[in-house]
């Protein structure tokens, strides 16, 4: 058995290769590497957007154009308007202006389009990608289709980067900074919120994640990466015209991300490399083969894309990694949990017996269907209330009404004495209500630890920038320590670093309870927590809930397992056809004729 390499060593070897490349390779390959670097930055943004966040943009080319044209205009224009005069002439100031400008544009476009569900966003990106491209070509001060020339080279400490191998170092510095920043970000509280986007908005919002904000963050970051790439491009080429910023290039960027492996930051580099080299090669080969000139390589790329999505949807990176590891083992990176981290502050639980949740005459109509009719219930601190009823009785709808996923047609929901109707699940979660889902909503490829840490999201506060530059490590340690504590509390300690998707369904349900507990709630909503559990596991779950009750937590439980419910809960509410048909102590409810009729069929 060979000893495993540390990932750091692999990275160092890669950087060393990059450093010596210009010394040994001919100029042609350096130019190629420059382009790969430039494209990789844009593809990196798309990895963040598409592979991680589940959003897609075909319009990244337009953001590259924004960066390139901003710097081209600022560094070549003789007469800048007075308020912009300070930024004239210097590429570095132009980069700053370009980033700010791109940020503003991306924010506005994002505001307009990010709220839209899945497929509208990519369509909108096609639309604005085209619009911006046409604008580059039609605006007189941008030089029309001929573009702008005479862009100065970038100078670093007074040294002008004129040659390909000089600007090479700057480009790859930017690429590595981008990769590092992105992977830092993804491995943080904000990053988990971003990765949670793919698990659906309902779960993320219920854990207190502002999903609209997370989407905006990755959209702007992707735009900024593209803008920086455009800035470098403009100063490398020394001229700009609209052609390299069109929609077809935007599509090519997406191809790079998908072919490389859209879920991995390094996939962007692989994809950019493969597509750029292939393009170079095919552009030589195909016109000779077909006897006419034209961009025939797109045929090949189109077919390649379809094949990748049919046969290897994860892209090339995972294949490369597993191939590499077969020959040279690389140690897996495992998150260390710092047991000594200062515990997070805890919420003061309301006094036992005080009313936590009060639903009054809640009615929810879906067209002609009355899913909940005049439902009232009350949960107190330090009690477990079971909501039972046959399938289709409206229990889950009721859950959605009180947790803010849905808004009742009429009626009132009070949580801690405050009306929460129409408030949204994120606000309600912040007030101290947490929940699990009937259909488990986990992020299957993330570890158990990270999944539970999403629950602790709102107990941290550090933002995107501090995460990207690792200035929030003490808070991160506290969040992870809290997550680890909850995992051990529910008895999943041995699975802490396993992928959540590898757990049995029953364990996944328990994991959801740990995630809910990590948010430090005073009221816990559990949707069928015992489904799929074995006898011993059910016993352990019952013990856990009893312990939580003793600590003063309120629990609202939807469950079908009557043995489990009747031996555990304090009170029971029974629903049928959206209405409450009985309420009381478990033993009374069990004898109630209406309940017996509902479950066993009544006598007419």
């Amino acid at each position, binding site marked *: 058995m060979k000893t495993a390499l540390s990932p750091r060593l692999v990275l160092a070897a890669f950087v060393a290769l990059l450093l010596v490349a210009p010394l040994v390779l001919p100029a042609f390959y350096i130019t190629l590497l420059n382009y790969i670097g430039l494209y990789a930055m844009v593809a990196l943004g798309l990895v963040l957007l*598409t592979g991680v966040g*589940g959003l*897609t943009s*075909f319009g990244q080319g337009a953001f590259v154009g924004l960066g390139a044209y901003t710097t081209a205009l600022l560094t070549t224009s003789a007469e800048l308007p007075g308020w912009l005069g300070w930024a004239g002439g210097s590429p570095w100031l132009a980069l700053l202006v370009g980033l700010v400008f791109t940020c503003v544009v991306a924010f506005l476009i994002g505001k*307009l*389009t990010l*709220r*839209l*569900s*899945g*497929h*509208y966003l*990519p*369509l*909108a990106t*096609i*639309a*604005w990608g*085209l*619009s911006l491209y*046409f*604008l580059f070509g*039609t605006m007189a001060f941008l030089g029309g289709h001929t573009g702008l020339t005479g862009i100065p080279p970038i100078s670093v400490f007074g040294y002008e980067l004129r040659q390909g191998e000089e600007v090479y170092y700057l480009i790859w510095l930017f690429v590595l900074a981008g990769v590092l920043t992105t992977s830092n970000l993804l491995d943080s509280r904000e990053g988990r919120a971003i990765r949670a986007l793919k698990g*659906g*908005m*309902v779960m993320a919002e219920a854990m207190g994640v502002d999903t609209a904000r997370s989407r905006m963050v990755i959209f702007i970051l992707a735009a900024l990466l593209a803008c920086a790439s455009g800035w470098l491009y403009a100063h490398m080429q020394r001229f700009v015209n609209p052609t390299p910023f069109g929609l*077809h290039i935007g*599509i090519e960027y*997406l*191809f790079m991300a*998908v072919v490389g492996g859209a879920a991995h930051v390094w996939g962007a580099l692989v994809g950019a490399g493969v597509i750029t080299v292939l393009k170079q090669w095919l552009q030589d080969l195909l016109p000779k083969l*077909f006897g*006419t000139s*034209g*961009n*025939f*390589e*797109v*045929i*090949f*790329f*189109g*077919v390649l*894309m*379809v094949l990748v*999505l*049919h046969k290897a*949807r994860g892209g090339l990176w995972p294949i490369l990694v597993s191939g590499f590891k077969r020959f040279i083992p690389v140690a897996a990176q495992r998150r260390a949990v710092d047991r000594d981290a200062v515990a997070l502050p805890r919420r003061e639980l309301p006094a036992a017996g005080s009313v936590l949740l009060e639903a009054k005459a809640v009615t929810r109509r879906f067209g002609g269907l009355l899913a909940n009719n005049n439902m009232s219930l009350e949960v107190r601190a330090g009690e477990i209330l079971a909501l039972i009823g046959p399938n289709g009785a409206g229990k889950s709808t009721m859950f*959605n009404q009180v947790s803010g*996923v*849905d808004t009742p047609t009429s009626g009132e929901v009070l949580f801690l004495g405050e009306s929460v109707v129409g408030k949204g699940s994120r606000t309600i979660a912040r007030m101290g209500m947490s929940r699990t889902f*009937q*259909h488990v909503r986990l992020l299957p490829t993330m570890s158990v630890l990270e999944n539970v840490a999403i629950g602790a999201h709102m107990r941290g506060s550090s933002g995107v920038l501090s995460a990207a530059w690792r200035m929030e490590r003490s808070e991160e340690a506290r969040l992870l320590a809290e997550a680890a504590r909850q995992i051990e509390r529910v008895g999943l300690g041995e699975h802490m670093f396993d992928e959540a998707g590898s757990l049995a369904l029953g364990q996944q349900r328990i994991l959801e309870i740990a995630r809910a507990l990590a948010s430090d709630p005073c009221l816990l909503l559990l949707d069928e927590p015992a489904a799929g559990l074995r006898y011993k596991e059910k016993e352990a779950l019952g013990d856990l809930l009893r312990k939580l009750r003793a600590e003063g937590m309120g629990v609202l439980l939807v469950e079908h397992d009557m043995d489990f419910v009747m031996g555990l809960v304090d009170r029971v509410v029974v629903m049928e056809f959206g209405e409450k048909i009985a309420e009381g102590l478990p033993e009374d409810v069990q004898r109630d004729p209406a309940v017996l009729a509902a479950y066993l069929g009544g006598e007419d």
Partner: protein
Amino acid sequence: MDFQIALILGQDGITNGAIYALLALALVLVFAVTRVIFIPQGEFVAYGALTLAMIGNNVFPATAWLLLGAGVAVAALDGLGALRAGQARKLPRVLAVNVGYPLAVIALLRLLPLAELGLAVQILLAMLVVVPLGPMMYRIVYQPIAEATVLVLLIVSVASHVAMVGLGLLFFGAEGYRTPPLSDARFDLGSLSISGQTIWVVAASIVLIVALALFFGRTIYGKALRATAINRNGARLMGIPPALAGKLTFLLAALIGVLSGVLISPITTIYYDSGFLIGLKGFVAAIIGGLASYPLAAFGAVLVGLLESFSSFWASAYKEVLVFTLIIPVLVWRSLTSHHVEEEE
């Protein structure tokens, strides 16, 4: 601008709008049944128009080779599938449909004096070549990943679009073509002169829309497609194979695409890559209809057509920008009016 010009622009707008309406209907249909956002719709417009132009110029249309290639690929996929399932007796039919048919079409194109045929026969030939590419494309590209997310299907669509544009350049060259108008007649209504082509376009669109309405309302296959659009699993349980629904939908979409190409190519010069922008305008219309409502999509199409023709008069340089920026207020309106709870998977 005087009234006269406004009338002419309005006529242009409605003519183009009628074609966008057809495309929008096809896009809504494809999305509803298969969840595919059918970006290559525009390529069928260009392929249809240019194949017709080739036939009119007495040139063998290279799209026929694509038909053969796609047919061979489908035969390979279906043939292997049949062999694996131990159903070798299906092979002759698979081969006849997917390889025999393209060979027959190629023979027809080789033997007939293409330029001397009437326009109607030429159009029919173009349809025989291009329309079957629709269901073949579904079989090769979409059917193996029919259960993938909308996003993956969309990326596949874009990839197919890119490949088809490249093939279009290979088949037709960079030159643009116009086909002869379906009618040279002109009708004078007061100060307005209406061309026969306009009447053809509007009438053909209306006829096609009515035919589609009858198809969906009165025929078993139409109802099967509607059922699949409403609930794929439910339809499958009722014995409607999703693959059949997909192929049928793509057949209709390709048919609509080719007809749109035939209708538009006498008005606008069509290049190998013209389809994309034409298709996208259909998309803007379809989005106005929320990718769900046919009447709203048709209304949106006329709106797009009018906006396009009037903006080409007032600000011709910004014509495309204006049309595609229209999508933004529409999307904002959509996002403000639609509030939906995420569905359980």
